[in-house]
């Protein structure tokens, strides 16, 4: 086993995870360098979300190790992992998952408030981020009054507001139209680059992977480098029929 390079902020070694008897990850090793945008590609069901959940400490792999800045995530207790997630990691879901009774800026400021920041600085930071994502004028509206793309942008602002070390984005643009998709991705990657935030981006879309510095591909829970993915990502979950 080769020692990982020094500038890896996050790396995983031989992760094995099985969900309900089906192996989801089989021996994955991956390193994420500092301030890079890493795309994790692969069709649906290839283990992208499981890998991201392992890396972000939401899920502990049955075998294998996850290290963040030379600290072992896989041996941490749930409380320590919770604090790590709150302090160092950001997470964006395919669905925005905003708190419906809070306004847009309160949703975006929530990580800072959870952190114990004062009301006024949290509000200021959240408003600045919403402005950067072109939804500053919607800051006082509640999620039910926003369109889906606007909600997803609030979710992006919420993930970026406490300037995490690593941002995990799990199919952040899956439910959006093509135009909204490009806009959300562009703002996300631009903000990450300007603030030196490392991004791990799971996507089944080859177009999304173009925004990344580096890509790794998963197929049935394994890393594939040389094998071409079946009919690329357009055929969602379609098995390769050429081999028959």
């Amino acid at each position, binding site marked *: 086993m080769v020692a990982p390079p020094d500038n890896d902020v996050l790396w995983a070694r031989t992760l094995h995870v099985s969900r309900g008897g089906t192996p989801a990850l089989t021996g994955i090793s991956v390193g994420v360098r500092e301030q890079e945008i890493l795309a994790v590609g692969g069709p649906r069901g290839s283990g992208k979300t499981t890998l991201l959940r392992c890396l972000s400490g*939401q899920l502990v792999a049955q075998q294998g190790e996850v290290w963040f800045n030379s600290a072992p995530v896989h041996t941490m207790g749930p409380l320590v992992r*919770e*604090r790590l*997630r*709150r*302090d160092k*990691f950001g*997470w964006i*879901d395919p*669905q925005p*998952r*905003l*708190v*419906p*009774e*809070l306004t847009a800026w*309160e949703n975006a400021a*929530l*990580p800072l*408030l*959870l952190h*114990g920041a*004062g*009301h*006024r600085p949290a509000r200021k930071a959240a408003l600045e981020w919403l402005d950067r994502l072109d939804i500053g004028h919607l800051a006082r509206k*509640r*999620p*039910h*009054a926003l369109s889906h793309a606007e*909600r997803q942008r609030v979710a992006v602002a*919420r993930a970026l507001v406490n300037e995490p070390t690593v941002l995990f984005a799990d199919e952040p643009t899956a439910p959006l139209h093509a135009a909204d998709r490009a806009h959300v991705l562009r703002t996300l990657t631009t903000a990450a680059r300007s603030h030196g935030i490392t991004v791990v981006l799971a996507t089944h879309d080859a177009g999304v992977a173009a925004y990344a510095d580096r890509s790794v591909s998963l197929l049935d829970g394994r890393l594939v480098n040389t094998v071409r993915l079946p009919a690329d990502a357009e055929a969602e979950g379609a098995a390769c029929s050429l081999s028959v």
Partner: protein
Amino acid sequence: MLALRLARGAHPLVLLRRLAVAAASAGTGFLLLCALGYALGHPQTAGSSALRLAWCVVPLAATVQFAVAVARTDPATRPRAALFAAGLGPARLMLLSAINTAISCTLGSMLALLFFLHLRGDIRGLPLDGAAAELLGAGRPLPLAAVGTLLLTVPVAGTVAGALALRPRTVKSGRTPALAPESTGPADDEPAPPMPQPAGLPWGVALMAVGLAVETYAARETATGFPLPGRLASSSAAVLGGWAITALGLTLAGPALTYLCGTLLQSARPGAARLLAGRALQEESRRIGRPLGVLCAVAAAGLAALQLYGGAAPRIGPLTVLGGVLVGGCAVLTLATAAVEARQSRADTTTALLQLGAPVSLLRGAAGLRALALLAVFSPLTWLVGTLASAPLSG
């Protein structure tokens, strides 16, 4: 059959809630049967027997309210993806919940009948055989139709009220019905619009004032028209009417006061805990506020009774005690069930917060803040209403 099959696999807490409904139904059924037994034993005093039956309306209302609250929180009857996939829409779910309520209440009624027959001396072989034989009119044949009618009252009322509360209704554009659970289907990802502010405060306060005024006015005359069975001091019909108006006012004001609590809690630069606690309270004000208002009214009535009769150590009959325990217990359990329902409806929010890395202690702290705020507003109100209600009677 499906209702029974789902009930068999249910969580023990859910079964416990249904058992509580059965117990409440048993208590109310027993009170109704006791009124019948009294009427059988004392055919010459028809008015007094009718009065006993009329007093049973209060425990009956409390039981029905509790049964509806339990039916609304029952996980077996909430929209679930698995049941939807099997083809069970809102209408069938309503049917399922009605069957559940009917089973619980009928079980309670049967228990009440057994206990009644046992105390009357018709069933032998256990301690307390025929302990109240002469009081319950032993020796005379029980009229079967009357027993059937009385025992069916609670199951029918509970089932109909539960079905009405859970009936599938069309969602008007942009607004969900105020108290309906998501009866249109499994929750989608669209966030719900905020609940409008409940507008019952002026009406509630006005009704409370009118009720207390009527009571004060009526207390000057010493008419004895509507005595509570069980040797409580005489109370005139006007005093009771005034008290009923006050209770109605409290129930109406409950949601608005809860909303006000939420507004106060999240005002003035809140941190995360106060913000989440206050907004959740605003959102759940209707669900929590109404049973809270009812509990407040019951507690105020208890307080007034305590202030009136507490010193003299009155000889309160066992049936009055049973009725009081039933009403108080049902009010408390209804509020607890409403809190469970509110928690169920906020499960998505809780998941989202936990995924953000919010510590569990913060969520618990927010829940504690909510309870404290409600306690701080409603306990002085209960004390005030109870004292005001008892002041003219004791003076």
